[in-house]
């Protein structure tokens, strides 16, 4: 994944998390709350996942990743 893509994913992760943060701090009506959760939880989860994946590509995190995978289970 290119550097541009990583920056784009970081921006999208922040942008899609903003409605959730707003919903926490503002007292929104129920319909708006449900709409925010249903639309933005999956999308922000996806973009946060992409950012985490890009971070896990450096050597140190790669080691951690291997530890999670091969714990002898």
């Amino acid at each position, binding site marked *: 994944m290119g550097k541009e893509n990583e920056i784009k994913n970081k921006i999208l992760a922040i942008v899609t998390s903003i409605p959730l943060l707003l919903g926490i701090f503002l007292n*929104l*009506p129920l319909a708006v709350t449900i709409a925010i*959760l249903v639309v933005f*939880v999956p999308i922000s989860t996806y973009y946060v996942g*992409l950012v985490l994946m890009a971070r896990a590509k450096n050597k140190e*995190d790669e080691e951690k*990743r291997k530890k*999670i995978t091969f714990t002898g289970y």
Partner: protein
Amino acid sequence: MYYPVNFNLIYILLEIITAFIFGGLLLGLHRKVMARIQGRPGPPIVQHLLHTFKFYIKELSIPNTSSMPLYVAIVLAMDAVWILALIVGPILGGSFLIIIMCYAVHKVAEHGIGLASGSPYTKLGSTRAVLSATAEMPLIAVPALVFFKTDTLLLDGIINYQIVNGSLFTQLPLVALAMFVLVLSKTPYSPFGIVWGKDIVSGYKTEHFGVIRGVMMMGEILAFFALLWCFITIFFGGIITAPLAYMVAMTGITVILAFICALTPMVAPYHAVMIQWIFAILAVVNVLLI
């Protein structure tokens, strides 16, 4: 019924996270019990959750043959559907019909996930998703029969009916059995789980790895939790009310499901349809006899 006008987002979000963690542990327990029955040590109970988190730091691969927007969007839609079901069901005690609708849309999502990647295995999985939709007769029979009995499809109303008239499980045991088969068909390694059969590698999930698989597993965990919650609420709603009682009941049902999954081979697709229709017809007979 009364819906609070200003419902706190953080409260709902915490409920969703709780459902995700507990649902993940239940699926871990399911695997553990299955393994013990089959004479294997099995993975730790937290393994299903670890597995989900692990996929979040694994590289995402999107096949060249896939339809990229659909490949990602349909998985997000599956998550969205079950988040809606959780809000409508356990959190608001709203309409059972919306949860049934979520279940139906889940089938559409399975079909879409299968078609999006372009792999022949996932396409077979998606074809089976359509075929298994014809098996979901209990999906229509259960809400209809519960409505004839209780005159409401609001979950709060169904709970109130059971507080006054006793558990629906004792009044409509065969309808409960039909709903149980519905829950069973959504359980991993189920005899009715033809959409992710190992004969077609992993069915519609064959090509999904990395972040997108993590998101998909999150949706499946929420789906398992929501369906177990619905089953307990609709048939034991008057007896089981406290959160701890719900947790114990969900654990008990998961163990029963694990026994069935461990001891039953996956049935052929046409047999899956036939068997589920038989349970739906039994449910109708139950209501006619009463």
